[in-house]
């Protein structure tokens, strides 16, 4: 499943605010500072009106940041590009543009923007941190570690950087280093939700479930309805559950997770698994369908859907789902194989083309674009490139027929 950086959303707001504050303070006179403060205090409607009248860089930039804060990244990108038309060497704007692209899963554009920011300002800690986040999202965790470590050295004591560094360490199997990073974050901010969740997840990966639960519960003490913390805790509890009471406690946690974020397929999938463990297959079936309606690429939900269908005697449908699931898993195996091959041979363009096709097939459009751009730039004469680009522009179809996903509301 493509790794969308959803957990970065809150972070980006902090980042952009930090950048704008830093940028505005440096070298401004009192009048300018007052003006900037006035612009920053404006809402989107006011800024839009002002931008129409007076499309100065600072107004457009402020409007871009306001859009980003509202999660309107496409509109934010437009404003940042407009600023860069006027002032192409603004590292801060390039950084914010890179983050916006990242949050839109437009990885290639994000890369270009962040590289630009770092060319202009080589010791730009925030841009390094964002580059690290980009590389976590694009399955390059070892590169991400280096970049986040660099960001940490340039701008130490940034909780968000440390937490993402912890995540990158986990992805490179360095759990002890991850714990150290989270610990440092907690020394700076004792209430860091992200650091507690990260610590819990690292202990979970190390199968130290007591410590995992302890830290996830601390996260929930800070934010009782945080869906990530609830989901992580539910996962640990489900794996430990032996008695009906254990299952009931797990159920309570997962139901809270579902209430906290109704659109998170993982929560429905986990709750469905719990229902299956409880022998409540019909309910489980509906939950897995719901998970798949929200995230068609969720292979765990797809598999559980097949098991639920069998449990309720719908064997024909189960056989259909089983075929889709098997195809998907063998597809995943091939992707892994090609990814490894590419990591060995930088000049293996045929494997890149094949991998891009597989990414397109499995709905990992952003990763496919990234590969295609690379091929376009470095191997423009590859005979399969035109076909690949054509595939890239073909609208994706859902891997699971909608007829299999209709059902009652769980």
């Amino acid at each position, binding site marked *: 499943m493509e790794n969308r950086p959803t957990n970065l959303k809150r972070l980006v707001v902090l980042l952009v605010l930090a950048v704008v504050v830093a940028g505005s303070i440096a070298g401004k006179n009192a009048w300018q500072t007052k003006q900037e403060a006035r612009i920053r205090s404006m809402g989107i409607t006011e800024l839009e009106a002002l931008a129409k009248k007076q499309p100065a860089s600072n107004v457009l930039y402020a409007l871009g940041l306001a859009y980003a804060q509202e999660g309107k990244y496409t509109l934010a990108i437009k404003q940042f590009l407009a600023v860069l038309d006027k002032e192409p060497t603004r590292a801060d704007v390039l950084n914010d543009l890179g983050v916006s692209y990242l949050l839109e899963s437009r990885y290639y554009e994000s890369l270009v923007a962040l590289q630009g920011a770092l060319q202009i300002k080589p010791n730009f800690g925030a841009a390094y941190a964002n580059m690290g986040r980009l590389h976590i999202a694009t399955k390059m965790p070892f590169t991400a570690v280096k970049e986040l470590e660099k960001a940490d050295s340039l701008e130490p004591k940034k909780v968000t950087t440390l937490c993402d560094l912890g995540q990158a360490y986990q992805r490179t*199997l360095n759990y002890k280093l991850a714990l150290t990073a989270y610990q440092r974050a907690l020394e700076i901010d004792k209430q860091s939700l992200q650091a507690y969740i990260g610590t819990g997840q690292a202990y979970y990966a190390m199968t130290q479930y007591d410590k995992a639960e302890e830290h996830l519960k601390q996260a929930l003490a800070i934010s009782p309805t945080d869906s990530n913390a609830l989901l992580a805790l539910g996962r640990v509890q489900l794996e430990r559950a032996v008695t009906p009471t254990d299952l009931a406690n797990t159920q309570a946690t997962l139901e809270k997770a579902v209430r906290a974020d109704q659109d998170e397929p993982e929560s429905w999938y986990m709750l469905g698994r719990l229902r299956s463990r409880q022998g409540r297959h019909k309910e489980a079936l509906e939950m897995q369908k719901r998970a798949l309606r929200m995230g068609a690429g969720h292979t765990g939900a797809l598999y559980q859907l097949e098991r639920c269908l069998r449990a309720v005697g719908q064997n024909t449908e189960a056989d259909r789902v089983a075929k889709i*699931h098997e195809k998907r898993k063998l597809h995943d195996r091939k992707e*892994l194989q090609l990814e490894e091959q590419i990591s060995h041979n*930088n000049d293996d363009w045929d494997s890149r083309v094949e991998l891009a096709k597989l990414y397109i097939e499995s709905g990992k459009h952003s990763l496919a674009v990234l590969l295609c751009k690379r091929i376009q730039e470095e191997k423009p004469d590859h005979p399969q490139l035109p076909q690949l680009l054509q595939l890239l522009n073909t609208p994706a179809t859902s891997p699971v027929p909608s007829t299999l996903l209709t059902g009652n509301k769980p």
Partner: protein
Amino acid sequence: MRTSALLGCLLLLLGTTSCNKNHAVAPPTTSTAPQTTSADAPFKLVEVAEQKGLHFRHTATSRSPITIVETMGSTACFLDYDNDGWEDVLLVNAGQDFQNPKQTSGTKLFHNNGNGTFTDVTAESGIVVESFATGACVGDYDNDGYDDILITGFGRNYLYRNLGNGKFKDVTAEAGLQRRPNAWGIGCAFVDVNRDGLLDIFIGNYVVYDPHMPFCQTANVKHGCTPNQYSTQASELYINQGHGKFVEKAKELGAENKKGASLGVLLCDFDNDGWVDIFIADDGTPNTLLHNLHGKFEDIGQKSGVAYGEDGGMRAGMGTDAADVDGDGKFDLTITNFSNEVTTLYRNLGNMNFQEVSYPSGIGQPSLGKLKFGIVFADLDGDGLPDIYQGNGHVHDTIEKFHDVDTFEEVDQVYHNIGNGKFKEVLPSTGAFPGTRSVTRSISTGDFNNDGKIDILINSLNRPVRLLENQTPMKGHWIGLKLIGTKSNRSAIGARVELKASSGNQMKEVRSGGSYIGQNDLRVLFNLPENADTSHLVINIRWPNGTQQTISKPTLDKYSKVEEPR
């Protein structure tokens, strides 16, 4: 979601990574913690290999990093090749360099001296294995009363016919075991798939090794690639034609398992229809359950629920075994997997339908941190319930350079069956078993000293063999049976034996192969709890060809021969 140990550093964007460093070879070492038994130890296993005369050290390579071929290890088998009623031991060796077609044979046959000590009889046995050998299995394919041996490996397989005079003859070619090009046999079993009384041979083939891709890397550290990097190989099923000839019919009979990277091969009649099914633990591909439909097979792995983990992922299936863990009269299935994947336990719900119960059974969580290979169900404390011995050891000898938790050498794990299908991990610190750090691959069970307690035989990668003698002070009686087929195959492979007892029913099968490239004692051993009523014991045997036999008042505390009614 857990992070897979396979972490390719991708070059999707920019930058390069380099393959560098040829890491120095660390000398193979094992260290055994001092063993004292505490009250928490439900059993006591003591390492006695050297003391009993099993002088053997497995060798696969002296290089580092090691490739996928070198990391798979080799088998340790129990067999009674001379029918003297004492289990002998075959210890298979890999070799010096798998890239060379011929190895200096290091495979050894040890004769049991009739008192639980062993003598190396390799030289006179005629067993000379020059391939880079991996697995082995045992069965009397020619029904001459002496168990024969099949040895699998990278490069070629060997079929050794037991001549009955302490000597074996390589009959691979004349028997017709012509292998597919580049086949790499791992797990195997003698099995009478069509119930004609002749043992056929099933061989699970792994992957097509690509010499151009010996290593992968993580964080600039080279290591052997996982099977994901190679294409899978079809399995082979050789049908016994009689007169020592076999014909390969895997495809024709639906047993090909083309998409599977096969490792552990397990025979078990899961649906109790009298036709032996074949389960294959596949590494990084969906597990396979070949349902025997009167001599033809259908892969029902996915349909039955044993192909994938609960999360729908393909786990790294290595070893496997089956036992009735909860006493419901159905064989449940266990499978070992990679680190950060559980040891899977599937509960048999009947009608070829399984439910994963790894976590609720109590073996899920403790198994997560280890990379697991061999696994056996064995009643270690003699209470009539199958416990689990699980062998651990990573596949990458360089793992510690890029993973700050996993290690190459690991300590094995044991799970005590506490009833109702639940298990509790027993730690070596209790003194229940040696806390030897090793790279365990093959595990087999057998009663080498005929004391009615199941012992454990372990072959580890590049390390000395281990024989764990069961020294648990058991106070209950036991029943040992050596089944001899007359109409069925003479080894009685595929026979199902049920013990009806007021202390609890038990169920066993006679199996060739199993575990991860293991071969258990072909005899059946039932232990009875202390003070169990022995006045109404009944043994029901279903012979491989379907004949039913009932034995009332079986002989206690010694092994008895039982011949199939003619």
